[in-house]
């Protein structure tokens, strides 16, 4: 957990509107856990003012520049251009200086058992699932279900497959994989593997549907939430979601940045979470 002044190693458009950025990040390899994120800041004095949160897609090592030098640790982000911040990000080039705060937050709780695992991602929500998949004990028993609006929104699936994960794709317009919502596949898979554990990240309506399916079947679920964040360290209280025990008299607000972004489904007050996020989605 520190503020790293570092540089961009590469920054490429991998699908229309989706970019993949590799960043020099010494110190991340040993400490970053699947599901953690970074707060990204474009150079000082440039807008936007606040940092932006991004999940860590992958951590890796590049060979040293020459003998006697250390290997170069890097992290990779994958981001979708949606507003002012990501618009500035996508114009960054190799060598540009940036700042990175992280790794932040609580990642996925991973047990070492090699049972069935189902990862459910919606669009860009697939980002934190890659490190998760990579860290699972028996990847042949891991299924990635990934849904999106259209074929452009389905990214990096082959990389998951290279980990030995089986993937299932749906798109709303049917341009890739099955036409429809990913939750249909989830139901099918849970019929087949009723003891599977589910991990999910994506837009709120999808998460809510996943939660309903899992709680009906008593299947353990962890979700990674998004929230508007100013600080990323638990100080501003801008990113809160209501916990299961929340009430006006006895408030239980959880910081997405600190107690999350990954939550066990049972920690959250889903009625209220959904209501909050509905506001966000539409605002």
């Amino acid at each position, binding site marked *: 957990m520190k*503020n790293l002044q570092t540089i961009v190693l590469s920054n490429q458009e991998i699908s229309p509107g989706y970019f993949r950025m590799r960043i020099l990040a010494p110190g991340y390899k040993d400490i970053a856990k699947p599901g953690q994120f970074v707060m990204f800041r474009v150079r000082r004095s440039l*807008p936007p003012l*606040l*940092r932006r949160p991004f999940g860590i897609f992958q951590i890796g090592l590049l060979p040293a520049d020459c003998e006697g030098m250390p290997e170069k640790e890097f992290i990779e982000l994958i981001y979708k251009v949606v507003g002012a911040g990501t618009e500035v990000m996508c114009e960054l080039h190799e060598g540009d200086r940036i700042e990175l705060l992280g790794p932040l937050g609580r990642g996925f709780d991973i047990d070492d058992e090699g049972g069935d695992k189902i990862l459910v991602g919606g669009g860009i929500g697939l980002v934190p699932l890659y490190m998760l998949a990579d860290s699972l004990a028996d990847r042949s028993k891991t299924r990635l279900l990934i849904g999106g609006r259209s074929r452009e929104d389905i990214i990096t699936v082959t990389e998951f497959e290279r980990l030995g994960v089986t993937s299932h794709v749906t798109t709303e317009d049917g341009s890739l994989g099955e036409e429809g919502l990913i939750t249909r596949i989830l139901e099918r898979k849970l019929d087949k593997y009723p003891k599977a554990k589910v991990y999910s990240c994506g837009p709120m309506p999808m998460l809510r549907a996943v939660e309903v399916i899992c709680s009906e079947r008593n299947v353990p679920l962890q979700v990674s939430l998004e929230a508007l964040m100013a*600080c990323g360290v638990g100080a501003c209280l801008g990113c809160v*979601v209501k916990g299961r025990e929340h009430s006006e008299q006895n408030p239980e607000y959880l910081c997405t940045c600190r107690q999350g972004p990954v939550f066990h489904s049972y920690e959250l007050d889903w009625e209220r979470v959904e209501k909050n996020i509905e506001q966000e989605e539409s605002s």
Partner: protein
Amino acid sequence: MSSNIATDNKPNLAVEFAGLKLKTPLMPASGTFGYGQEFAPYLDLNQLGAIVTKGLSLNPKAGNPTPRIAETVSGMLNAIGLQNVGVDAFISEKMPFLEQFDSPVIVNFFGNTQEEYGEVAARLNDVPGVAALEMNISCPNVKHGGIVFGTDPKAAFDVITTVRKRLTKPLIVKLTPNVTDIRITARAAEDAGADAISLINTITGMSVDVRTRKPRIANVIGGLSGPGIRPIAVRMTHQVVQTVKIPVIGIGGIMRAEDALEFLIVGAKAVQVGTANFVDPNAMQTILADLENFCIEQGIEDINDLIGSLQL
């Protein structure tokens, strides 16, 4: 005033006022530094002039629905709704951590009624590790139709008087900028017995998502902070320094050492850094280093020589 020869010795950055001895004139602004703990991994809390906590109320407070924050041009809107753990939980759960540091702890607090203000102050008065209280008067007075205490000089005077009676520790009153003439509330605070004034709190603002046509903050209206408001904060600090005799702490949009210097030059004895902590958890350490460099470069041996040195 100060010689022009750069000195190899470190300049003195310590300031003293209202019975407080600060190692440096730099401290966090309430609500942007949590209870200190959140920033400990990034910053040496012992380097700060003081540690200022999130605002506390008598009972725990849930705060507002989300979205609570929105970025604006060179600023941010927030309507956190003063979410906090309540004064008792603060004393038992948060103070032990804060007492480890030798920087004085300034506890920010508020109430919904005059009585609540008095009661919170009284409870904090007995806590040994608390160096001073900062009283946030930008809260609606629920007994008087929700008019904000700090926008009504009479209500401000009354509530500060109530607190003063129950407090022996130094009292800093934090003013709201949402007034016609900040000098009037400043004078009311001085008359009611404040030991110091801090300003400014956030300026009320609003932002709309033009596609959904909804306010970008659930509470509709929020408080604007950040570098865009600095000229307003500097102006008000200048006006208040010219009006009252008690010391003034400047707040509003401080991102860099030069920004802090604007407040010190118009006469603030110290400054608070708010939104900048979100942008960069190291912000105060960088500002501190640059303040020192500025003093060396300008041949200023004692930061007190700089305070109030505005050339009119």
